[in-house]
C-alpha cells in the first residue's frame, strides 16, 4: 500500500541495525517563572535538565516518573513542539537540523506523536477521515490519494471506514478516538512514534485493546516507540528498555527486566513498591516514600532525590551523582552514589535492603 504513495518514499534505514534510531544528548529546557516585581533574581523551572538517552531500532523505550518530572517536556522537545535550550539529537546517524544532517521537515515526517487527551488532539470540525488525510495533503499528496490512505488506515486500526470515516470526533468513544489518533500518526509512515500517556485516559478493558493494537502495529511496520506513562504495569508490559526520571533528570535506565527485577536506584525501588498489591492477604503496610515530589523550581543541590531518600548522606548534598553503568551490565545505568565505589558514600556498593 505504501509504495503507491506519490509523496517522497519514506526514509529507508540508513545507519544499519546497530545504529540507534534516536540519540538524544544533554537535552535541557528551563522555563522562566514570572516572579513578583520585587524579586531580584529570575527563577527557573528546571523541567528537563541534561537528559541523554538512545532508542534502539524496533524497540520500545518506556519513560516513567511522577508528574512534573519532565517526561512530557522531554517528548515535546524531541518532537520539536518547543525549542530546547540546549542539546542535540541524532536520528538514525544524522544530526537533526545540523549541517549535512536531516532536515526538520523530514525529521518530523519520521516522528509522530500520540497524546493523552484524545479529544483535545483532534480537530472538532474535521471528520476523522479528513483529520487523518490532512497531514499527508499538507505534505503534497493528492486529496483523493490521501483519502484512500485514510480509509485503509481506519480499517487497520479497527474502525470500519464505511461506518466511521464521516463521523466527527465527538461521535466516538474515548477508545475509538485514540485509535483515530494512532491512525493519524501512522499516516506519514513514521519510524518513531512518541506515545505520551496514550492509554492513560482509557478504561481498563479498552486500554488492553489499544495496547494490543500498538503491539501489532509495531511488529507490522517495524516501528520504534517512545512510551511515556506513569502506569508502571503498562510500561512493564510494553517496554524493552525503561528510563526513570526524577525532577528533570534521568536517575536510572536499563533493560526492562533489570529495572523491574534489580532496580539500583532507591527512587526506582520506591516507585515500584508504591504499586498497589493485587493480593488482599498481603496488603501494602507502609508507604515507601513520604511527601510529594519537590518543587522543580530551585531543585536541591547534589542528588535531587536526597530529601526523600532513606540512604541520604552528606556526600549526596555535596556531589551530583553521575549516570554510570553498573558492574556486569553496562546497559543498566543508575545515578546514585550507592552504586559508585569512588563516591565516598559509606554504604556504597554494599548490599542494600530495599
Amino acid at each position: 500500500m505504501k509504495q503507491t504513495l506519490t509523496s517522497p518514499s519514506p526514509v529507508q534505514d540508513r545507519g544499519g541495525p546497530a545504529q540507534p534510531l534516536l540519540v538524544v544528548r544533554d537535552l535541557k529546557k528551563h522555563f522562566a517563572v514570572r516572579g513578583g516585581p520585587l524579586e531580584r533574581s529570575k527563577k527557573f523551572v528546571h523541567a528537563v535538565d541534561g537528559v541523554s538517552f538512545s532508542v534502539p531500532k524496533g524497540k520500545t523505550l518506556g519513560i516513567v516518573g511522577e508528574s512534573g518530572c519532565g517526561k512530557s517536556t522531554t517528548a515535546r522537545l524531541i518532537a520539536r513542539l518547543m525549542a530546547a535550550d540546549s542539546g542535540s539529537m541524532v536520528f538514525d546517524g544524522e544530526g537533526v537540523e545540523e549541517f549535512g544532517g536531516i532536515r526538520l521537515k523530514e525529521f518530523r515526517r519520521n516522528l509522530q506523536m500520540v497524546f493523552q487527551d484524545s479529544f483535545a488532539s483532534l480537530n472538532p470540525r474535521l471528520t476523522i477521515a479528513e483529520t487523518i488525510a490532512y497531514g499527508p495533503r499538507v505534505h503534497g499528496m493528492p486529496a483523493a490519494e490521501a483519502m484512500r490512505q485514510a480509509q485503509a488506515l481506519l480499517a487497520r486500526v479497527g474502525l470500519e471506514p464505511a461506518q466511521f470515516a464521516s463521523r466527527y470526533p465527538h461521535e466516538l468513544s474515548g477508545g475509538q478516538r485514540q485509535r483515530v489518533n494512532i491512525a493519524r500518526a501512522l499516516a506519514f509512515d513514521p519510524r518513531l512514534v512518541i506515545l505520551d500517556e496514550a492509554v492513560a485516559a482509557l478504561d481498563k478493558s479498552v486500554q488492553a485493546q489499544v495496547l494490543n493494537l500498538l503491539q501489532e502495529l509495531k511488529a507490522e511496520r517495524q516501528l520504534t516507540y517512545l512510551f511515556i506513562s506513569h502506569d508502571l504495569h503498562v510500561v512493564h508490559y510494553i517496554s524493552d528498555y525503561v528510563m526513570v526520571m526524577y525532577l528533570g533528570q534521568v536517575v536510572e535506565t536499563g533493560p526492562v527486566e533489570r529495572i523491574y527485577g534489580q532496580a539500583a536506584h532507591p527512587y526506582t525501588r520506591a516507585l515500584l513498591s508504591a504499586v498497589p498489591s493485587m493480593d488482599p492477604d498481603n496488603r501494602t503496610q507502609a508507604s515507601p516514600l513520604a511527601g510529594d515530589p519537590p518543587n522543580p523550581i530551585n531543585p536541591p543541590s547534589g542528588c535531587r532525590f536526597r530529601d526523600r531518600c532513606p540512604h541520604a548522606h552528606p556526600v549526596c548534598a555535596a556531589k551530583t551523582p553521575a549516570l554510570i553503568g553498573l558492574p556486569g551490565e553496562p546497559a543498566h545505568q543508575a545515578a546514585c552514589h550507592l552504586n559508585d565505589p569512588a563516591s565516598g558514600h559509606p554504604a556504597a556498593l554494599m548490599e542494600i535492603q530495599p
Partner: protein
Amino acid sequence: MTTPLVSLQDLSVQFCGSRKASALNAVNLELGAGEVLALLGESGSGKSVTLRTLLRLHPERTTKIQGRMQVDGQDVLALKGRALDLYRGGTVSMVFQEPGLAFDPVYTIGQQITESIRAHAAIDEAAARAQALQMLERVQIPQAKRRFDAYPHELSGGMRQRAMIALALACQPKLLLADEPTTALDATVQIQILLLLRELQRETGMSVIFVTHDIGAAVEVADRIAVMYAGRVVEQGPVGEIVRRPRHPYTAGLLAATVGTENRGQPLLAVPGSPPDLAALPPGCSFAPRCAQASERCRREVPPLQTLGQQALACWHPILPLAEAA
C-alpha cells in the same frame, strides 16, 4: 449484618434533561457499619452516580429516582430542608476526585473546615478552629499550623487530598463516600492516601464506599467489592473471592485485561467492544454484546441478581456458578 447502615433497594436513576439516560438500573446494595465497600467499574458504569444519589446531589428537576434508599435508619429520598443539610456532611460526607475543584479557592483550608464544623455543631469559633487544626494533624499534614492558613492552590495535590479528607471527616460522619480519591495522584502519593484512608477507617470505625476503576486500589482498602456495569451491579463478593475466583465474565475480563508481570510480550485478553450507550441499553444483559458466552437468553432477558451469603451475581452463564462449594 443485622441492620445495615446503608441499604439501597431497586434504586434506579434516570436523567431526563435534553437527552434521556438510565444511569442506574435497579441497584441493590447493603453496607454494614464499619465495612469498606469498593465500587469497581469503568466510566459510565454508574459508580459516581450511586455516590451522588446517596448525597442527593443531582438536580431534582431533571433526575428521576425510583426505589428505596436508607442510610442510618433514615429514608434519604424523603429528607428535606434542615434535615437534609444535617444529613449531608453529618451522617454522610464525600471526598471528591479533584480536590483542586472541590475546595473554594477564595477561603483558606482552615476556614473551610471550621465553617463546616460550625454548620453542624453549636460551638464557638475558637473551639471549632482548634478542632479543625486537630483534623489537619490527624490526616498527617506536615506543619499543620502553617497549612491551616494556606489557600487550596498553595498546596500540592497529595496535600490537598489530605485536606479534603480532613474536611470530610470533620463532623465524624458514619459513612464516607470516596469518589476516585487517588486517581489524579501520582503512584507514590496514591499509596500514602490509601494507607491513610485505611488507618482512619480503622480508628473511627466508619463505613466507607470507595469508588475506583483501579482493581489494585480497591484491593488495598476494601473488604468487599461490587462490580458495576452499565448501571447495574453484576457481581459482588469479598475482595479475595472477586480477585481470585471471578464469576461474571465481565469481572474475569477486567482482571485478564489488567497488565502485570505474567503477561509481558503476549497479547492481552482484552474485552472486545466498548461500554453500551446508557440512553439505549440492550433489552437483555447489558454485557451480552461484548460477552463471549452470550446466548439468545442473555440478549432477551436481564439476569436477576442472585444472592448467596456474602456474594451476589447477575449472569445467566457464569464462569463459576454461585455455590458454596466453588
